[in-house]
Structure formats: structure tokens, C-alpha cells
């Protein structure tokens, strides 16, 4: 079972993503902020992380940098609402594997997650 971490400061978003991916046989962990996310990445070593950019405290870009430093093989997909071009370019520069804008199309998200995991194999 593929381990996935969903990071979003919005609990409702974490919830429905968890429901959606669990139904598709993923083991889904959730984190409401950057600090928890980093702890879980180190402990649970998820294969893929869905990461929100705008979060209080440690923001998505910081979390991305730390994940890619510690675990370069972990796939990270940025999930953003409205971000400036610079922010997105910054995320890609720091090794984000893709970015997806909110509101999400769940089918597209799932396909993208599958693609990224297939790259790993």
C-alpha cells in the first residue's frame, strides 16, 4: 500500500482527500502545518506528498526544501490556490514534481499521483 501525506491547513480539504485516496488503496496521513508534515515525513517516509503552499508558520516552500534535502526521492506535488508565477517557479526550482491548482479535479489529481509514482519504479 502506497503511503501518501496530505498537507493543508484546511482540515476539510485534508479530510476529503483522505477519503478519496483511501478508497483507492492509499494509506493517507494528514498534517495541518509544516512542522507536523516534516515530522511525519521523517517518521513514516511517505512515497508522495500533496503539499499546500500557503500555510501559517512554516510555509509550503520551506517544507518542500526540507523534504527534498532529506529525502530527494520523495515525490512532492504542490497544491496551490492562487499563487504568483514567481512562487510557482520557486517551487519548481526547489524540486517540486508538479503543481496543481485549487479547486481540484480529483480524477486529474489521482492520475498525476499515479504518473509520479510510476516514475519512481
Amino acid at each position, binding site marked *: 500500500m502506497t503511503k501518501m501525506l496530505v498537507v493543508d491547513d*484546511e482540515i476539510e*480539504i485534508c479530510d476529503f482527500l483522505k477519503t478519496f485516496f483511501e478508497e483507492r488503496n492509499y494509506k493517507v496521513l494528514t498534517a495541518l502545518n509544516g512542522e507536523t508534515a516534516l515530522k511525519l515525513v521523517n517518521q513514516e517516509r511517505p512515497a508522495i506528498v500533496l503539499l499546500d503552499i500557503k500555510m501559517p508558520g512554516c510555509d509550503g516552500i520551506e517544507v518542500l526544501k526540507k523534504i527534498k534535502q532529506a529525502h530527494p526521492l520523495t515525490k512532492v506535488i504542490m497544491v496551490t*490556490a*492562487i499563487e*504568483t508565477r514567481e512562487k510557482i517557479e520557486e517551487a519548481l526550482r526547489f524540486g517540486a514534481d508538479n503543481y496543481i491548482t*485549487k*479547486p*481540484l479535479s480529483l480524477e486529474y489529481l489521482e492520475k498525476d499521483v499515479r504518473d509520479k509514482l510510476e516514475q519512481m519504479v
Partner: protein
Amino acid sequence: MRMVSLLKERKFWEQGVRNGVLCLVFLSLFGLIYWIARPLSFFSEFFGNPFSVFLLTLLVVVSTYRPFDSFVTFLLGKLFYPSRSRRIRNLQEMPPVLMQTLDLKELSNLIVNTVAEVMGQRIVILALWEKSRYSVVSSWGLPVGKLRKIELNPESPLLRFLQEHRISVDRNELMRQLSWPDVYEFSKEFEALGISFLLPVCREGVWVGFLGLSGRLGESDFLSPEEREALGHFASMSAIALKNAAAFEELRQANERLKDLQSKLLQTAKLTAIEQLATGLAHEIHNPLTIISGRAQLLLLKKGKNTDEKMVEEVLKTIVKQTERAADITRKLLMFSEPVSSGRDVIRFENIIDDTLALISYQTALDEITILKNISKDLPPFRGEVNEIREIFLNLILNAIQAVEQKGTVQIKVSYLEREKTIEIRVQDTGKGIRAEHIPQLFNPFFSIREGGLGLGLFITQQIVHRYHGSVHLESEPGVGTLVMVHLPASEDMWQGQPALPDPEQVPVK
């Protein structure tokens, strides 16, 4: 030396009288010297000889001719042209009026009209030297069509001669002094310009342009040395006045451009603050939308499978809740883009502060910042433009929160100072403070101590407060914090003539 025009009677008589007077004086001088010399013939054979006395007289006459000639001309001028000395006086009285005229067009017309009227000229033109070319800025006696046709070539020998020597040039005088090809050249140019006298307009090495005079109506064309001197003086005064007016015009234009720029900048700054907030707000709207869409997609994927009623109900409730949340955000955003209303509303400070804080919270995390609000219950009704008052709070609270950075306290207090009849707004933070040397500059536009700060917040705040006849003060200590105080006079007589409106029903904001 000067042109004698037989057609001009008065001139003819003047010359005749002058020559007669000079002859008479010469003869009497001869007689006088001969009479004085006779007794001296005892000493020398020289004085007894009429021929040697004639030579001596000639010597005296030649050496005293010029000043004497000027004197006679002056006297005759008074006799034949009594208006001439009045003209000179008139010209001498003009400079103070010139100096007071700052409009370039008006000044040019004044100079040209003065010369034309005082000197009785048929045609006068004033050409100014700008950007290496001449342009006729004002003229007298020229039909409009002809004025347009005048094209002054800066390379023309005549104008170059004028610019180089900077002396007045009389056509007839010049003709007599120049060799043939030049005479032909210059004569052509004078003809083209339709004038016969050129007067440089310059002062202290600065070439401003020239005045062209055609000649007098009715009486003699010729200008006496006194008139020339007065004209020369008038021209150099005109040069100063024209320079001043040009400088003033430049300043006025620069000032206008600056004002225009400033208002544009202020507009931009206001937009930037709202844009910043808008980005935060739009971001915030996408979260409820994501939740609504996500939940609905989940349900759609389950269609046909076992969907229990309870789950559907839960999804629908979520959708209703998230829709309300999104609507609330857009409502708050709209408040800031409301068009400026013409009337003055009763300001509800409490609401404004809450709205402002709500807006800021979308953009900046306030979790670690303690916000203390203290709004006095007995504030007198204060009328103002809601958007403006909101902007004051937005700027002050944003500054305070940015100063605090992560952890700290921001205290917002609104009270009424009974004695001063003034509403006092205090926004105090426990932030990093401002160094004393920066404080005087804080209200200058584009001065910011924050990296990436636009430096317009306090400037705009002050502009708004001044519109309410109020004042802004700032106290700060590095490492301790900053206090900004805004005083808004609340006395009723400030709004005289405005009937006290009943409190408008406000849209309830959640």
C-alpha cells in the same frame, strides 16, 4: 551718417536747422578765436595770420564735433520731436511691469506692444532663441497669415552677425559699413523680415532672442542715440523678464507633472494595498471552493453505488457552510472597493476595526499576535468617509503587525478627549521599533524601513487625516515598540450646514 529722407519734411527741416546751427557755431568760433588771438600776435607771427587761426579753429571744431553734435541733436530732438523724451521715459518705466508678468505669452505681447506703441512702429516682431532655433512668439502690425510665413533661419548671416556682436543693427547704417556681397546678402534678409532695425535681447551673455522694428509711422525712421539706449536697456530688461517667465513656466509645468504623477502614485499605492489583500482573499475563497468541489466530486464518483442519505446530507451541509464562508469573504472585499460616497457617514469605529482585522487575517497569520481592542462607549457621532477611515486603520494596523513580526501585542484604542473635542486613535505595538533618525522621514512618501515596503502607508494616512483637519504623531523606541496617535477633531461646527443624519442601516457583517 544717418539717412536723410527728403520725403519726410520734418526730418529735412531738422537736418537743415542742424547744419545751419553747426555752420553758425563754426563761424562764430572762428571769429572768437581770431578776436582772442589778435592781441597775441605780439608774441607770435602765427596768431596774426588768418590762415593759421583757421587751422586752429578747425582743430578745435574737429575735436569737439561729436559731443557738440549730440548735444545739438538732443536739443533739436526736443524741439522737433517733443514726444521722444516722453517715449524714453515711458520705456524706462516699463521694466517693473515686465518683471511682474510671469506668463510667457502675455509678457511677449507686452514687450512687443510697448515697443510698437511707445516708439510708434509699424511692425515689431519678437523672436526667441529656443533649442537652437528662432521662433516668433509675438508680433505687432503683421497680418496673421504673414506671421506664419516668417521662417527664421538660425544660420542666416544677419542673425548670426546679430548673435555674435550683440549690438543693435540699423539696416542703413550697416549697409554703409559693409562690403558689397554682404550688403546684398543682408539687404535681402532685412527685406524678407520686413524690418529695418534689429535689437538683441540678451543679458549677461545669455542670448534670449531679438526684437525687429520696421520703422515709424509718419515721422522719421531714425532712432536717436537716447532712444536707442533706452531701447537697449528695455531689451536687456526684457531678456531678464523673459528668462524669468520661461523658468517660471518650466517650474509650473514641472509642478503640474509632479502633481499628476503624485495622484497617479497614490492611486497605485491604494490599489497595491487592496491588490495585496485581494490576493490573500482570493486565495481564501479558493479553499471553500476546493472543499465544495471535492465533496461533490466524491459523491459523484459514488453515484449508483451504495450512497446512504446521511452522507449526502453531510456533503450538502458542507457545501452550504463553505458557500457562506466564500460569500462572507467576497462581501468584505467589496467593502474596500466601494465607490467613494458623496455624503459623510457616521463612523462606527468598532465595525471598521473588526473588518480591517478580518481582512488582514486572510493575508497574515495573526495566531501569535495578541490584538487588544479598546473602543470607548461614549464617542460622539463622528462623520466621515468610511473608506478613508478604514484606510487609516488598515495602514496603521498593518504597520503594527508587520513591526511585531511573529509574537507580540497590538493595542488599538479609540477614545474621546473631552477638552480638545477630539477623537483619539492609538495604535501601539510591541514590535521592533524605529530608530530615532528615521522618525522624521516616516511620513515622506516612498520612505520605508521595511524591506520591500512601498513607503506610502503613513504618507497616505497623514494625507487623509489632514483632510479631516486632524494630526498624526508617532513615538517609537527600538526594541520596545511604536505608538501612532491620530487626532480627529469631532466638534460639530466642523460639519456646519450638514444636517445630522440618522445612523444609516448597515449591512450586518458576520
